[in-house]
């Protein structure tokens, strides 16, 4: 296991940020999902060793998060969400600088900086001042500095923010290449569900500081609930209340589509029974493949 935490808890004063989170993450790309305030950033802070957990323990690449923070930071590449650079530097100096700060010899860091800048597509502009870089170029640069010391794990915080569709697709392709073929594990924190769905085999969903769901995407889709898509003519509110009273979740989309999330043990015939009881006509009924968005909505309870 590359990341393992047990009963991890942390609070900012009276606000509980993490509450008894236990999880084990293996190889490959892992998506970290959750609404604002769910505890994603706090979890990253603790894993990087910036915060000491109030309770619980954890290991990153078998290094203790309480005692071996320097070793963790040496083995982890971190790509922050916000724009960050050092004014007055060009890309190659900047990347080499952070390679050196990670413990690389100066000459090696410079050589490696050229390599990773070519890899992320900044080879031609590597001698340009960073102050003149566009938002998309800065995003790639952050990825380059995270890769320069050849980390075993990459922590990527919103890696596709500020990117146009083409740039986003290219960066996602880079991350896919790194995680799939280069034996670098990726922990991807993002609010763009499509990104997570495109890249990650495993997902961790946090909600209100607690672990809401964790596991392989395919397993989570299958295990947690079944999703049915309906079109109804009649009293939708009464139909909704009837189904919700039996433990299902019902969401009405803007286009009139009704999504019913039923717990795995529930009988799909309950939908027809509810329609019969409330006098609603079912005009369309299909069992849908759950997307990550559906999973997220089902687990966290937000659209």
């Amino acid at each position: 296991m590359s990341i393992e935490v047990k009963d991890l808890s942390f609070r900012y004063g009276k606000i509980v940020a993490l509450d008894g989170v236990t999880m084990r993450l293996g190889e490959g790309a892992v998506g970290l999902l959750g609404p604002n305030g769910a505890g994603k950033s706090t979890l990253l802070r603790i894993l990087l060793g910036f915060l000491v957990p109030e309770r619980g323990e954890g290991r990153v690449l078998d290094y203790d998060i309480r005692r071996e923070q320097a070793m963790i930071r040496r083995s982890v590449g971190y790509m922050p969400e916000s724009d960050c650079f050092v004014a007055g530097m060009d890309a190659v100096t900047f990347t080499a600088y952070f390679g050196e700060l990670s413990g690389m010899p100066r000459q090696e860091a410079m050589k490696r900086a050229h390599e990773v800048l070519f890899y992320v597509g900044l080879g031609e502009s590597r001698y340009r001042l960073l102050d003149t870089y566009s938002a998309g170029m800065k995003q790639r640069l952050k990825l380059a500095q995270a890769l320069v010391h050849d980390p075993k794990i990459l922590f990527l915080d919103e890696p596709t923010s500020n990117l146009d569709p083409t740039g986003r697709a290219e960066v996602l392709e880079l991350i896919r290449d790194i995680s799939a073929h280069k034996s670098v594990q990726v922990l991807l924190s993002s609010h763009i569900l499509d990104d997570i769905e495109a890249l990650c085999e495993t997902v961790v969903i946090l909600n209100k500081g607690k672990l809401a769901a964790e596991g392989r995407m395919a397993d989570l889709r299958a295990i947690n609930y079944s999703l049915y898509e309906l079109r109804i003519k009649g009293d939708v509110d009464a139909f909704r209340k009837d189904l919700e009273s039996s433990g299902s979740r019902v969401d009405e989309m803007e286009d009139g589509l009704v999504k019913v999330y039923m717990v795995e043990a529930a009988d799909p015939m309950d939908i027809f029974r509810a329609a019969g009881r409330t006098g609603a006509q079912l005009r369309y009924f299909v069992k849908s493949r759950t997307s990550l968005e559906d999973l997220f909505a089902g687990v966290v309870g937000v659209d």
Partner: protein
Amino acid sequence: MATVREKGYTHWDGKLGERRFPWWPIARTGILLAFRKKRFKFIFAGAFIPSIVFLVGLYISERLEDFKAIIQGSDRLLNIDPKYFATYLASDWLLFLIVLVLAYGAGGLIADDLKHNSLQLYFSRPLGKKDYLAGKMSVVAFFVLILTALPGLLLIVFKLVFAGSFKFFLQYPWLPLSVLGYSALLTVFFAFYVLLLSALSKNSRYVFILIFGAYIFSNVLFGILHEIFETPYMALFSVPANLQQAGAFVFGQKLPHAFPAVWSFAVLAGICGLSAVVLNRKIRSVEVIK
């Protein structure tokens, strides 16, 4: 923008080492970045004018007969003793030039990192807060020492060379230590002073104004309060006056202000202490992920 993946990702086959001085890349890069500013190069070169003037003074002092026509009775100014060195190192103009060099070359040391959110990049490396601050302070130390200790010691060497004997050194064997001691005091003070002000704003231009403003305003305040209260203790409000008082003490000279030098040391230490508290609060690794 170039196509992504002009070159495939390859693993680095080296081994990451543990640096003995993790702050060294920060120090080296800070110094190099300062010299990339065109205006700074001129200011830095200009800051050596006082040392050249004092070097010429040393030369003339050994050739008084040759320069009799130029000196015309002002040869008492060229009496080379510890006061000559104290005058150089604690002079208003050298202190002003040091402040100017630091405002241009080191004002953005922390301000730029705060502005561009780069603290999170530093602290995601195996670096502690102490390493980060040591690296930044080393940049200030480099500029202060190169303008104080280096010329101060070279002036002593040139004095011996021009005189052709060790008589001066034997007469004042403690002088090199005084030069080093006062240079160290200036270094420590200015390191805390500049980093304190650099951490107070994200705009390096405001920091430039703060560094100059605090230095000059403190002296103006001293002048005003001295006129009102007519007590020498008002000099404690002035940064340059405290540095000069401490300098006179280190070189064993008559104190410029009529109060014990320990008060000036206490004020300077207080500013350093305040700086340490502010830096500890502003440079926080827990704020690195937003």
